[in-house]
């Protein structure tokens, strides 16, 4: 298996193709337009189809039509484009359509900027659309992981019949790293797509829908969805523990590019004999809250520090997980500014220098 130097956006595009997703619907937007440009060259070679849609609203709906007949299809976009898909994403969840979406996040809100950001955490994990639903959210921190998680996203989408999102900041889309594609890609067996609308010759007609005028039916649908989300919480929580050990004095929580920066800080501080551990969520939903709790309560931990490229979003889930047992601190930058290792390091040292902070009675 050779290592190929690729731009993140292109690596993700190729990964999708390797996972058999040769149907791509998208609308250009920085910083992920290279996905579409790559696809417009590659898909004709593999017999796939790329439709450049008239808008992201159309994209979301084209995807539902595409996966309805059982094929793997996906899109990529960036923050404002993803906002335009919220009605569709809610509907994919309701109608159990295994669509994969890639969000290469940029600075917001509004038109914002085109530089990297992690400020769509709420949108992706809490559901930016209406109604009770959840999207499975994967957050890679290297390009190899971008490849692996993109391929996994298609598998999980099919496994749970649920929209699945890969969220990465613009940095991951734009940088290059060597990546490897599995040569004999095999997936765990998946349930048959016995719901796909492929024409009803020889069987009863199938209907894919999200409207349930009878409230009891609609509630049943919601309860079935909730069971699925529970299953995901049981089976699909993924995270990486980096240098986590009983000596840790601070527990860092960060994902994506931000986690790599934290790793650098941890390595540097380790050389100064300051022990810091990092718990890096790989799935943002389901969130590794239980695991964070377990680490946070360890006696040596003075505080949990969440670092994000946002004003503080994941930190709410971290706070909920820690349940007031340790102080939860936050450091973040926004607008395309990425916290540097130095900034994170300084913040850590500041926390360590503080007089043992009491667990606040209410986080305010």
């Amino acid at each position, binding site marked *: 298996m050779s290592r190929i130097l690729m731009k993140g956006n292109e690596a993700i595009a190729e990964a999708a193709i390797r996972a058999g997703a040769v*149907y791509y*619907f998208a609308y250009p937007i920085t910083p992920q337009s290279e996905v579409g440009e790559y696809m417009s060259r590659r898909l004709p070679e593999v017999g796939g*189809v790329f*439709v450049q*849609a*008239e*808008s992201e*609203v*159309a*994209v*979301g*709906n*084209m*995807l*539902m*039509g*595409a*996966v*309805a*007949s059982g*094929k793997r*299809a996906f899109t990529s976009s960036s923050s404002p484009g993803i906002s335009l898909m919220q*009605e*569709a994403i809610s*509907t994919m969840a309701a*109608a159990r359509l295994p669509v994969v979406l890639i969000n290469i996040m940029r600075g917001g809100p509004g038109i914002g900027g085109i530089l990297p950001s992690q400020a769509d955490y709420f949108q992706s994990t809490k559901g930016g659309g209406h109604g009770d639903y959840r999207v499975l959210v994967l957050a890679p921190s290297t390009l190899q992981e971008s490849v692996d998680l993109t391929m996994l996203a298609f598998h999980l989408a099919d496994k749970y019949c649920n929209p699945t999102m890969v969220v990465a900041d613009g940095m991951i889309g734009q940088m290059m790293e060597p990546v490897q594609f599995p040569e004999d890609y095999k997936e765990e067996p998946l349930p048959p797509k016995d719901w796909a*609308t*492929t*024409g*009803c*010759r*020889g069987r009863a*007609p*199938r*209907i*894919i*829908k*999200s*409207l349930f005028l009878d409230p009891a039916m609609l509630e049943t649908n919601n309860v079935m969805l909730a069971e699925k989300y529970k299953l995901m919480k049981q089976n699909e929580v993924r995270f990486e523990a980096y240098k986590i050990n009983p000596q840790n004095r601070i527990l860092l929580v960060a994902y994506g590019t931000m986690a790599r920066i934290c790793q650098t800080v941890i390595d540097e501080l380790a050389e100064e004999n300051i022990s810091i551990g990092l718990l890096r969520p790989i799935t943002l939903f389901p969130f590794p809250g239980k695991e964070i709790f377990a680490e946070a309560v360890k006696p040596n931990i003075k505080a949990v520090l969440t670092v994000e490229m946002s004003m503080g979003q994941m930190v709410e889930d971290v706070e909920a997980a820690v349940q007031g047992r340790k102080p939860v601190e936050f450091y973040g930058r926004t607008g395309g500014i990425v916290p540097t290792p130095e900034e994170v390091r300084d913040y850590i040292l500041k926390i360590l220098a503080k007089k043992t902070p009491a667990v606040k009675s209410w986080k305010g």
Partner: protein
Amino acid sequence: MNENAQAVFNRPQLFGEAVTHYCPGCAHGIIHRMVAEVLEELGIEGRTVGIAPVGCAVLIYNYIQTDFIEALHGRAPAFATGLKRVSPDLIVFTYQGDGDLASIGTNEIIHAANRGEKFTTIFVNNAIYGMTGGQMAPTTMPGQITATSPHGRNVKECGYPIRIAELLSSLRTPAYIERVAVYNPQNIVRAKRAIRKAFQYQIEGRCFSLVEVLSTCPTNWGMTPQESLKWQETTMLPYYPLGCFKTPEGEVKE
């Protein structure tokens, strides 16, 4: 039925047993039946997937016995594009109301038509938002009273009704586009021919096809079914002329 009697007009087999939820005399029922008959006659019901709109016809999947996907409001052409592009052997049709297609979904239908997506659209123009209780649609007639135009559509403020068949026909990409009506048996027969033709173009992989069917909404028009058909003829027809606006052949000659 008498022993050697022969049914010369039957409820199409493709209709299930369900009684529709439509109001008495609503032309959606006539149009549904024609679509079912055409699918049956062409023998394509087994490889057809319909795209249901959001609008009174949202439950069309309960009546026409083929696979169906329920689209979001206005987005049926996007669903159809996605489906037909990944499964070109399927016969894909959308069934859309005028609020759905000519208001919220104008962008999707224009671009699907312009890309020449090879599916068929049955566009049911009843000059009103039926399902939500009779609000003004872009196709509402000048002066027509609706829930949101209590003094009649004021063209100075809301503009003139949009003529979808004409609008789409002005695009350069080849397509089959025809407008038909259902206000009397002659026109019902013509309407069905147009619908059949639209599907035939798709079967042959030729082009995008759309049939605009002038319909009725007795409930929200505040008329009897019979009056509604009369109003369709006398008020809608002069503004919405019937006929074939575009064929791929015509384009080829161009």
